[in-house]
Structure formats: C-alpha cells, structure tokens
C-alpha cells in the first residue's frame, strides 16, 4: 500500500501547477468522509467533522499546502471540501434529526451561505471530485448544474459513486446516467476501492 501511495505522489510531483481538488456534490453524499479518508491516507489525520444530519459542512474547508517533499521537489496540494449544493433548504428537515427549531433554522441559514460559497469556489478549483450517493437517483438538478459548469469551465472531474457499502447502493445507475464521464464506485467510509479512485485522479488531473 505504501508503495502505491509513493507512486501516486510521484505522479503528482511531476505537476508544476498548484493542484486544488474540490469535493462537490449533494448534502450527505459523503464529501467530508472522503476528504477525511484522503487526508488520513496522505497526511495521517482527518480534516473535518461528519454526521448523518444534512448540511454538516456549512462552509468551505480548505486543507492547504499538503506539502509533499520527495527527491527535492515540493508539491502544494490543497483539498477543498465544500458544503453540499442544493436548490432548496428547509429547516423542517433538520427537526427529524432531533435539532430544536432554533438550531434547525440557524443551520438552514448557514447552509444557504455555504451553498453560495461552494458555487463561488468553482472559479478557483483545478479539478473536482463530484461525489454522489449510490443509493439515490443521481439525475438531480444540482448534479446537472455542477457538471454543466465544470464542462463550461473546462475543469476536469471524476464522478465518485460513493456509499457502495450500503445495501441499496446501485453505482451502475450512475454509470448508465453519465456514460461519457469517469465514474469510480467507492465506499469512503470503509476505504473500499479508494486506490482505484486515486489512480483515476492521477489520470484525469495530470
């Protein structure tokens, strides 16, 4: 495994431009779980809090300067973990998770600001991991809007079909809906198939 990551870094080290990988997707698709898995693999520590309540990440979190030094070369590698993008935010959804009405309303307000921030960050990322929950219908307006904007801005991206550990997961549905794009099924929670994801990132972002 260590050799694999060394090879992965070596491929990245050949880059001479700063790489900023944005994690985009719906609320609760597992972006922060994936960011933590990546940070654990590359830095040995997680970077963000996760929970089952949607919109847990309500502002952009940037793990800056993942400085990798090897053979005298340094790479500044940033992970940009963004709030989930949605077209609607209803505080009543948060009540189901045991939040008080005041907490739920506060969370909803913060979530709307987070979505705006995530969209603004599309101007700055150099590559994107579009994280989708394999257990739900991927053909949503948020996913269509994100993909449309990535294509319009010529930002390379990989679709991550996450949560394949769930019984109702159907990553083939994502592959069939987006046949023209690279789709990698993984479980960020269990670290399943993340090696394949990293190789796809190298191929797509190099």
């Amino acid at each position: 495994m260590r050799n694999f990551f060394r090879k992965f870094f070596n491929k990245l080290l050949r880059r001479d431009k700063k790489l900023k990988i944005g994690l985009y997707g719906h609320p609760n698709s597992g972006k922060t779980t994936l960011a933590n898995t990546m940070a654990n693999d590359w830095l040995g520590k997680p970077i963000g809090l996760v929970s089952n309540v949607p919109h847990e990440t309500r502002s952009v979190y940037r793990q800056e300067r993942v400085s990798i030094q090897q053979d005298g070369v340094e790479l500044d590698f940033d992970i940009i973990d963004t709030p989930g993008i949605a077209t609607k935010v209803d505080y009543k959804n948060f009540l189901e998770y045991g939040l008080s009405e005041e907490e739920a309303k506060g969370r909803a307000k913060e979530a709307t600001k987070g979505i705006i921030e995530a969209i603004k960050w599309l101007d700055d990322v150099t590559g994107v991991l579009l994280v989708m929950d394999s257990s739900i219908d991927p053909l949503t307006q948020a996913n269509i809007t994100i993909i449309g904007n990535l294509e319009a801005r010529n930002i390379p991206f990989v679709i991550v079909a996450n949560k394949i550990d769930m019984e109702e997961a159907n990553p083939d549905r994502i592959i069939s809906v987006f046949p023209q794009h690279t789709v990698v099924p993984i479980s960020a929670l269990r670290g399943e198939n993340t090696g394949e994801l990293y190789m796809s990132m190298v191929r797509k972002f190099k």
Partner: protein
Amino acid sequence: MEGLKLDFLSSTALESLTSMEKISMIVDRVKNGELMVIEGGLSPEEEAELIETTMREIDVEEFVGIDIFTLEKDQRSFFGLSKKKTVGLTVIGPANIMRAVKKKSNFLSMIAEFGDSGASVH
C-alpha cells in the same frame, strides 16, 4: 381549493432578457408561488446563478427554495450519425409545492401539492 398559476414562456420571450433579468424574473415569480414552464433551458452559468440567487432569497418561514426539472429531447446531428440531448422544456417552481416527479428520456411527470408539504434536502 387554492389555485396554482402556471406561466409559459417562449424562448423568444427570454432572448431579449439578460441573464440577471431572467433570473430575477424567475425567482420573483417562484417566490410568489408561481410555476414557470420555459421553452428551452438556462445555460450552466445561469443555473448556478439561479441557485445562488435562490439561496440569498430563502426565508426559513416562507420560501424554502426552488425545484428545477428539465424535459430533454434527442437531437440528431446534421448527417444523422450522432445523437445528443437538448433541453426542450424547463419547469421551475417553489420547492414546497413540487413534490414528486418521474423523469425518463423524453418524458416528465410531476405533481404539485398545496399546503405545508416540506421539501427534501435535494
């Protein structure tokens, strides 16, 4: 029974508007409880701007956001060798009204519900 106002706009009607004018018009009408059916679609940049504007306008009590659905149609290239999808119609409405939609290629089905039906996170 409370009524639902549907506005149908041709692509010609939208051509004369700037992106900002289009988005302002859509958000104003949807906030007012209206459902808009637009011939064609918005550009990806306009869609992103529409989401941003919607987020700024969300009021936790009265307006929880929008739902957008598109009806796509197959369009053949000049020589008929390749096929690509284009947006035929775009439906935009208040998220707390547009509750259930079934979408297939060349088919869109939706239900508008009145009352405090809530909106899912997506």
